[in-house]
């Protein structure tokens, strides 16, 4: 019962945030609504028993990436997004198609509902140490590769953003 309540509350929060992200015409507002989505998702993770991921979600996504976004937006002092001529095609087909698609997927997912599989809080807390074991034993190579990726990304960011004089 409590699960359903929490799930639906935060699901609604997430969807609302996502929609707001689309509706808002100022990047800052969009960014904040995205932060909201992420927070809501973090809670969903908690509901799914993924404590570590939830925390990391907050720290990395909300705390680092989105802050970076906000920072850039403030740095570039980005103004409102001017509404260019709306693409009629998008309005006529895009949105209905999108809705239709969502409905289709939902229907399909409901239909293959594995009724027996329920998710209980604490059924599986992604314990950090186990995740670490996975990360450093089976997924060691991808882990190292991503570390290299990060390094390259850092250097690339530095090179790109440096104001060459």
């Amino acid at each position, binding site marked *: 019962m409590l699960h359903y309540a929490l799930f639906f509350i935060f699901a609604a929060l997430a969807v609302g945030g996502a929609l707001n992200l689309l509706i808002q015409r100022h990047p800052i507002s969009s960014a904040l609504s995205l932060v909201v989505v992420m927070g809501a998702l973090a809670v969903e993770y908690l509901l799914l028993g993924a404590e570590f991921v939830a*925390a990391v979600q907050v*720290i990395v996504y909300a705390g680092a990436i989105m*802050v970076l976004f906000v920072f850039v937006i403030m740095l570039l002092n980005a103004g409102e997004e001017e509404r260019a001529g709306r693409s009629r095609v998008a309005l006529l087909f895009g949105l209905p198609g999108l809705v239709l698609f969502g409905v289709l997927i939902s229907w399909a997912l409901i239909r293959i509902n594995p009724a027996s599989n329920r998710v209980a809080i604490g059924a599986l807390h992604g314990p950090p140490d186990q995740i670490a074991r996975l990360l450093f034993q089976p997924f060691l190579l991808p882990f190292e590769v991503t570390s290299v990726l990060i390094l390259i990304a850092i250097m690339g960011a530095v090179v790109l953003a440096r104001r060459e004089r």
Partner: protein
Amino acid sequence: MDTTAFVLVSAAKTALFLAILLGVVAYTVLLERKLVGRIQNRWGPSRVGPFGLLQPLADGLKFIFKEDVTPPYVNRPLYLLAPLLSLSLALTTIAVIPVGGWIDIKGIRTPVQITDVGVGLLVVLGITSIAVYGIALAGWASNSKYSLLGSLRACAQMISYEVALGLSLIGVLILSGTFSLRGIVEAQQGTFLGFIPNWNIFRGQIVAFFVYLCAAYAETNRVPFDLPEAETELVAGYHTEYSAMKFAMFFMAEYANMVTVGCLATLLFLGGWLGPVFGPWWLQAILPVFWFGLKVFFFLFLYIWVRGTLPRFRYDQLMAFSWKVLFPLAIANAVVTALVVALKS
């Protein structure tokens, strides 16, 4: 323990902790004013009440009754959101911070802590990282160049130092092997060489401690890293346009954060509430909390002491210090610790 009792106890604990925290915040302000006064060779506030002990109350009343000016050119919702966000987040952190061991009252056994989360440390970090938004939004929403510059600096500074902060904790985590703050403290029980307490700071985390402290000062925008609110350059930085209660919120948030930092440092490096426990049962119940408070007080004192002593960094020095000193130090510390632990086992 059934749900209703759980809820009741939790509610009671939350109220209690909040009250204590706010009180601590208020009196930290007083403490700062008096100490800085002394450092600067003058009396601090001494009029209100004995030794000016009621000064915080007066300040609170003043803030409440001041006119609340909202400039016309601000982005109103965010302008309002920013201080609330800062304060609420600052206060939230206390939820996972344990101040003592377990207590039994009529068979109800509960930790001296609002809730014990498995990943408490990460929660704290997450909340502090979110706290950036408060400052950023404040600066941006109030739509004035001082604010904007201040918040820009704040963002950059906090992002940069958050890295060092996080990395400095790795060593501790390796030693204790858990994210739970309570677990970390319990990992520091006992002594070695007979008398030295088994605290992380004594177990080779001295470098980490130093890094953590610097980073934490920066996180809380305190001297010598208080560029976001550098009066001499930016009037008042990100909260230039704020007045009355909204300003008070930022103010309280800052001091709450100081407290949080102190608590965290205590828990991570100074063995939390651990300390000599003796005497009758009530004394045994109080002493840990007392030790804890003592250590936190030490950190608050340090804060103020540093503020009274050190000059402010220049911005480029700030960044350089973060990326070129603290960051490598933290990494080196993590690596060394990992190696030592690996070799020991």
